[in-house]
């Protein structure tokens, strides 16, 4: 890598070289039958150069031909893409306690045994369609630049998933856990999967209208994606965000504090430095509902004259480790607060609609009807619609038990989020 940096500096004023070397193994059970064991080895080198205020890039899987890689980066300067920033000097970052050698060494035979055990544990009743998965991911990442930055980190993720699928559909009650080292899934998580699944066995008639909706972590993508689209420095720069000029204003309910923190041990994705080579940390998006800032990369921070937020991933601004601060209510307490409403376990179509403006309209994939604090059964053919800003101003309570849930379909890094109970949400149904 040093040699590549050296070659690059013969052709440019500034250069940056990054390398990621990854290995992953994944075992998957479907319908309680071992279906797949797959492995991946991947090494990727990325080169960025800055010359005459323009930026050029090139990617390769090896360093066999360093001069060619530099030539490709120089060729891309031809596009005259403005850099607008300089590569930073970042001193060595505090090491993350995010790596265990046991992940790379963990035999696939043990993963098979663990996944099989989950199937057996959930297979107590006939007619259940059970899926489980166990995976290990290890990565070494290095970041060098011409300012003297030289960062390296090792990280590992061991993940376990369990799901019960409603027969005749691919909708399921699904839970996913990760840690830095091999572990067994919590029994409470499996109990929760079973309990919710069992309570959804009967399909009940349902009449739409305005009512309470308990957004579970897997369905929160519906609302959170809208907030992320509007708080990106790109949307601010393009003037499409409805949150322009609103830093310091109360945007959503004071019960909600939302932040990104790739250093948090709770995160599925942990990293001490971002793709710009900036040291990561906690960046608060909303503090008790008040907008605190827009997330950026060095380019947009410079352009918008903002403090860098160290949130550059895959070349652009992005949040990879979103957290919503948990509240105090247990799941049972949240359900007890619902006179009439729906527990939205998972939603369909979060990517449709006018996302930046907060509009959403999603189908209920796995949805349970609640009346007088009691789960009555599963509801089908419903659509939950509204505006994320309105819905997140109608928050009745925030749950205390955070789980992983997707935050957008673009940045596929799960957030750590508790269930959120909202009122006055519109639901359309066939009845």
């Amino acid at each position, binding site marked *: 890598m040093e040699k590549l940096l050296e070659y690059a500096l013969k052709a440019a004023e500034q250069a940056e070289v990054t390398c990621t070397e990854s290995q992953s193994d994944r075992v998957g059970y*479907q319908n309680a*039958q*071992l279906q*797949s*064991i*797959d*492995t*991946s*080895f*991947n*090494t*990727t080198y990325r080169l960025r150069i800055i010359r005459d205020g323009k930026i050029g890039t*090139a*990617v*390769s*899987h090896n360093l066999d031909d360093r001069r060619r890689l530099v030539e*490709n980066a120089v*060729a891309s300067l*031809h*596009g005259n893409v*403005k850099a607008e920033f300089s590569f930073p000097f970042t001193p060595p970052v505090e090491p993350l306690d995010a790596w265990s050698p046991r992940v790379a060494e963990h035999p*696939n035979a043990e993963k*098979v045994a663990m996944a*099989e055990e989950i199937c057996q544990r959930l297979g107590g009743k006939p007619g259940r*369609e059970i899926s489980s998965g166990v995976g290990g991911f290890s990565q070494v990442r290095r970041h060098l630049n011409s300012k003297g930055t030289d960062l390296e980190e090792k990280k590992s993720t061991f993940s376990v998933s369990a799901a019960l*699928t409603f*027969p*005749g*559909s*691919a*909708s399921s009650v699904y839970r996913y856990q990760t840690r830095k080292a091999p572990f067994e899934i919590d029994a409470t998580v499996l109990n929760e999967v079973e309990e919710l699944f069992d309570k959804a066995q009967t399909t009940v008639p349902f009449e*739409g209208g305005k009512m309470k909706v308990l957004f579970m972590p897997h369905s929160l993508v519906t609302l959170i994606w809208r907030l992320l689209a509007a708080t990106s420095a790109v949307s601010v*720069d*393009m003037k*499409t965000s409805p949150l322009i000029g609103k830093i310091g204003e109360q945007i959503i309910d004071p019960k909600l504090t939302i932040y990104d923190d790739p250093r948090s041990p709770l995160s599925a994705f942990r990293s001490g430095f971002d793709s710009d080579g900036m040291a990561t940390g906690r960046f608060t998006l909303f503090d008790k509902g008040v907008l605190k800032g827009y997330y950026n990369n060095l380019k947009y921070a410079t352009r918008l004259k903002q403090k860098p937020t160290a949130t550059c991933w895959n070349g652009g601004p992005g949040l990879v480790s979103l957290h919503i601060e948990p509240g105090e209510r247990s799941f049972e307490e949240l359900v007890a607060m619902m006179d009439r409403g729906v527990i939205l376990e998972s939603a*369909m*179509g*979060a*990517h*449709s609609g*006018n996302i*930046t403006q907060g*509009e959403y*309209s*999603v*189908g*209920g*994939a796995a949805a349970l009807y609640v009346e007088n604090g009691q789960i009555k059964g599963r509801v*089908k*053919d*419903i*659509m*939950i*619609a509204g505006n994320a800003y309105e819905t997140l101003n109608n928050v009745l309570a925030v749950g205390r038990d955070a789980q992983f849930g997707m935050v957008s*379909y673009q940045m596929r890094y799960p957030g750590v989020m508790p269930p959120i109970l909202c009122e006055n949400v*519109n*639901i*359309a*149904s*066939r009845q």
Partner: protein
Amino acid sequence: MFEELEKILSGIDADFADIRYERVSDSPIQFIGNELTEVSANKTDGYVLRVLKNGGFSSVTFSSPADAPRAAKKAQANAMLLGEKRDKPIRMASSEKVVDTVIPELKGDPREVTIDEKITILRGYNQTALNTKNIISTIARYDEVIRDKFYMNTEGSRIQEQLVTPSMRLQATAKDGTIVQPASLAYSGRFGFDELRYLHKRVEDRLKLAIDLLSAEPVKGGSYNCVLNYGLTGVFTHEAFGHFSEADIIENLPEMRRKMALGAELGSDILNIIDDATAADQIGTYTYDDEGVPVRKVYLIKDGVLSGRLHSRRTSMEFGEPLTGHCVAADYNYDPIIRMGNIFIEPRDKSFEELLAELDDGLYLCDPQGGETHGENFSFGAVYGFIVKNGKKQQMIRDINISGNLYQTLKNIQSIGNDFRLRDAGGCGKGQINIRSSNGGPSILVKDLVIGGR
């Protein structure tokens, strides 16, 4: 290249093995507003090795040839472990040995168009948008993905196939007061670059739509009878039905598999659904899948009855149904999975006006905006639509999302139009993004769709 692949395969002790090596060139250009934000030319490559041994089947992806020995060792160990643990061994349907090279005949090879010319063309479309009143922002993007695939297996097949996919996307945002509406145009050069030079009218039409949407009313939620235009028909066919004609989706869902048995009556006798990845000059067209199987046209529904399914070699054997050649990977980062090529509802004889007259009161919905399926339930958005009264289009509506049940909706297709068209751009996000999966069809009249609204 094949010599190197043969060397890797020759070191493997297995019942069957195949390897795919790909060189991928990806050359995006992007404007955000007036600013050129990206020009790059990335050339990468990688391998996917699959091994069938003792009833187990496993794949290993790797990016460096130096990793080939450990990839081979790992694939064999994974396959054996899988075989030991399965009650039912995995087997592959037999496929003909193929030795072939497929290089597309292009109308304008994007590799022969200079970066400057591509930037000029893209800047022209972008500038048209930026010069339009009420358009406040744009993202204009050109992508050029060239996959040069080398496939080889232990049965003697050796296939090189190139897939060249230049595409253009323009996203424009219109604003009037507090109302902000996006509209986008996506177009893939189905048979080369030349098509991308002549998109001016399409760009102008799309910009007008963005402006018109500013004064459109949000739809009211409820259950409606609807006419869907070709784009929505295509996404419905792809999302709601197509994914369940992919054998790997239903293979391990016993109840879905029972409901989707060949011979099941799923729709009325006017309904035919076809996947034709052999259709000339379409974005979902190819010659061989990533298992080296020649792709063929498949009638999935014939006269309302389920008559075919899309298969890999593994699922073809599992289901006891013929091979179709639909096992496709996004690129060298992925093991191939079953994908649609060009899926569509076959046109019938009703004109669009006849469909509207038959609808009488309801909604006319146009152009897809995302789509997702969970088993028998699906959801997809429509970019815009119109209220229809007495068979006549009335005011424009927006913020439209549709949800439904596959079986109910197939039965609720009441009439099928004659205005057939496949969509201009492909895309499917089943685990891996396949930019070469297309859909379309004629306008159709569907009863009782649930529409979300505020």
